[in-house]
């Protein structure tokens, strides 16, 4: 058993932290798009306005976390990146289309000089792409976690090699889980962004409903893991960290729901983000030390030492710029009740 704090592990942790930030921040922006899609009731218009207003200043910064995931992956773990982008070529391509359509449609709608003309079409595309993208992201993660990447020989047929690893029950369950989770996060955050307006109640109800959906999807995925991703299931359920991880995740979920119920929205926001984080970290711990289970461990896939050293320094220097800037951005737009201004 080697030390936990190797250079490769630090870089892998940076990938995980970036992915977590993407899920907790950008995930909620996608979830916002889902609620735009599902906007209903007498305050339909106010709901959509709140979503646009909450996402507007931050979505592009939140999106960059994904770029960081990709860049860190290909810098520090190039064979893993090459393998993933080969075998998950189709879903990653589809996810990209979703990302592009969501982002562009949002910007077109938000910054057009004559919004009414583009609003409808751009709004539909924004909402539709917000549903599809998390689904595919979850599918990709599920395909990795289930250990089906890098198993098929290069001579296998096109379907076996490029489709079968991800068109499978467990990855699809993960896709649905990601979608419900992002939707839940968005609804919880929107209760804070709404301030003391009637829309807040709309999103409180939606958040509670989404919490049920997350619960169902989580246990659905876990159940399927037993059959389709047995290794993952085994480490999730029988490791020495299983009990604390599951207790902590469950506690965060309970706190989030209770806080929503009691209308302590800021606590609900923190608890929901914690819950999402713990779920992701549970997956990471379950497959540790593998980066692509069944194919590469973190060490096997890691770049030469010089690159890792440089990456760690780049991360330190980059963070020194990034975190103060991010703090400033969120303090400006996310701390007080966000009234249009």
């Amino acid at each position, binding site marked *: 058993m080697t030390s936990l704090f190797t250079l490769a592990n630090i870089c892998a942790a940076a990938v995980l932290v970036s992915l977590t930030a993407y899920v907790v921040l950008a995930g909620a922006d996608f979830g916002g798009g889902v609620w735009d899609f599902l906007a209903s009731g007498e305050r339909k218009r106010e709901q959509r306005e709140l979503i646009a207003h909450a996402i507007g200043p931050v979505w592009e910064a939140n999106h960059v976390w994904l770029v960081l995931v990709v860049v860190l992956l290909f810098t520090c773990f190039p064979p893993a990146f090459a393998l993933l982008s*080969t075998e998950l070529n189709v879903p990653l391509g589809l996810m990209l289309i979703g990302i592009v359509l969501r982002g*562009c449609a949002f910007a077109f709608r938000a910054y057009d000089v004559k919004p009414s003309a583009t609003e409808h079409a751009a709004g539909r595309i924004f909402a539709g792409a917000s549903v599809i993208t998390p689904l595919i992201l979850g599918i990709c993660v599920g395909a990795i976690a289930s250990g089906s990447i890098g198993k098929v020989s290069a001579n296998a047929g096109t379907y076996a090699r490029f489709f079968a690893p991800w068109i499978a029950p467990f990855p699809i369950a993960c896709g649905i889980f990601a979608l419900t989770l992002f939707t839940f996060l968005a609804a919880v955050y929107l209760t804070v962004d709404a301030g003391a307006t009637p829309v807040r109640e709309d999103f409180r109800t939606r958040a509670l409903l989404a919490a049920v959906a997350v619960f169902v999807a989580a246990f659905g995925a876990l159940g399927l893991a037993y059959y389709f991703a047995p290794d993952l299931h085994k480490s999730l359920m029988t490791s020495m960290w299983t009990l604390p991880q599951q207790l902590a995740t469950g506690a965060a979920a309970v706190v989030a729901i209770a806080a929503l119920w009691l209308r302590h929205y800021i606590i609900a926001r923190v608890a929901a983000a914690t819950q999402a984080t713990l779920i992701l970290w549970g997956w990471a711990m379950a497959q540790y030390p593998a980066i692509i289970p069944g194919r590469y461990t973190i060490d096997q896939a890691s770049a030469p030492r010089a690159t890792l050293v440089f990456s760690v320094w780049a991360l330190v220097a980059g963070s020194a*710029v990034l975190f103060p800037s991010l703090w400033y951005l969120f303090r400006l737009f996310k701390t007080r009740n966000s009234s249009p201004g």
Partner: protein
Amino acid sequence: MTDLFAARSQMAISLAFHIVFAAVGIAMPVLMVIAEWRWRRTGDEVYLDLAKRWARGSAILFAVGAMSGTVLSFELGLLWPEFMRYAGPLIGMPFSLEGFAFFTEAIFLGIYLYGWKRISPARHMLAGVAVAVSGVVSGIFVVMANSWMNTPAGFRLVDGVPVDIDPFVAMLNPGSFSQTLHMSIAAYAATGIAVAGIHAFMLRRDPANVFHRHAMSIALFVAVPAMIVQPVSGDLSARFVAQWQPVKLASLEGQFQTQQGAPLRIGGIPDMDSRQTRYAVEIPRGLSFLAFHDPNATVKGLNSVNRTDWPHVPTVHIAFQIMVGLGIYMALLGVWVTVAALRTRSGIFTDRRLLGAIAVAAPMGFAAIEAGWTVTEVGRQPWIIQGVMRTADAVTPMPALVIPFAVFSLLYLMLGVVVTVLLYRHIVKSPI
């Protein structure tokens, strides 16, 4: 269409699309900050209107640039996994740093766009400056990574495997200085002249319009210095290519035979089968002089390597002629604008011939950028890493690559049309 050609075409379309938005993302924040600064100095509300309009326009273009840039970062793996497996540890450095610069850009753009009433004037201006600085810095990092493909450095090859990797040396590879300089200047020149050209066109109809006058002044203030110095940076790049990528130089000049005192060929069509460039105007010893600053220098021809190591020579040569031609027009235009502005400050707004010359130049900068990247990228073929890895060996094993090529082309076509319509509405809805 072979899979390799489909992959190359998809990459080409993605780069050609993205580079426009990337260049705008570098230069547009400068224009908008200058407009805001002028407003704060003079109190002239037209400048404020200009700053806000440019900010909104930039927001659309930045979003499209951010999304198409994300596509490219994935496409490196989706199309060229073998290249990334090999080069990731070497070119990952500039990409990681670019990631942080991109972060800063996105964060401060959000603050700039939504913070007009939330932060002090000084902070708001600073946010704009942060967008402008991080924009050019992220451009520089990405071009450094590209430059590594032209002049790979920072490793030793042992049995086809890179060892003794030094990411720092790789990042500061020999080509990085001339290439990043040329591209950064190009971004300011192209964006500036495009904006100036649009307003020059409007001023020809409505010479007294203060909005268009202010807009054109600021745009020219950014574009003109860049247009004038770009030939100097171009000379630096050409001499660099002559030294480091002689086959690329030979292709862009249509030089098939190694020759002492080689002529400079203007125009002409290279014929790869008969190995000569026809119909060109030849300036004796011109190429030797330009490439090595010595009229009697020997210029290596394409015949110095096997034909299998040639790029598609006519494409490279013609793209190069287009880039240089447009560059010269813009440099001369820059001089004309400078002379006219020095004579009488307001002269540039009323001289219809000058306004016409500026208006015509509107698309030229971007056309020159596209041509220049064609020279860089096609001119490096058949290599993806010059002299180290062939493009054909880097491509994904995924079949039917024509499908993603078609899908992404369609996506970009659609986005291009929508962006054009939106910007047209932005411009047409000018006040006053």
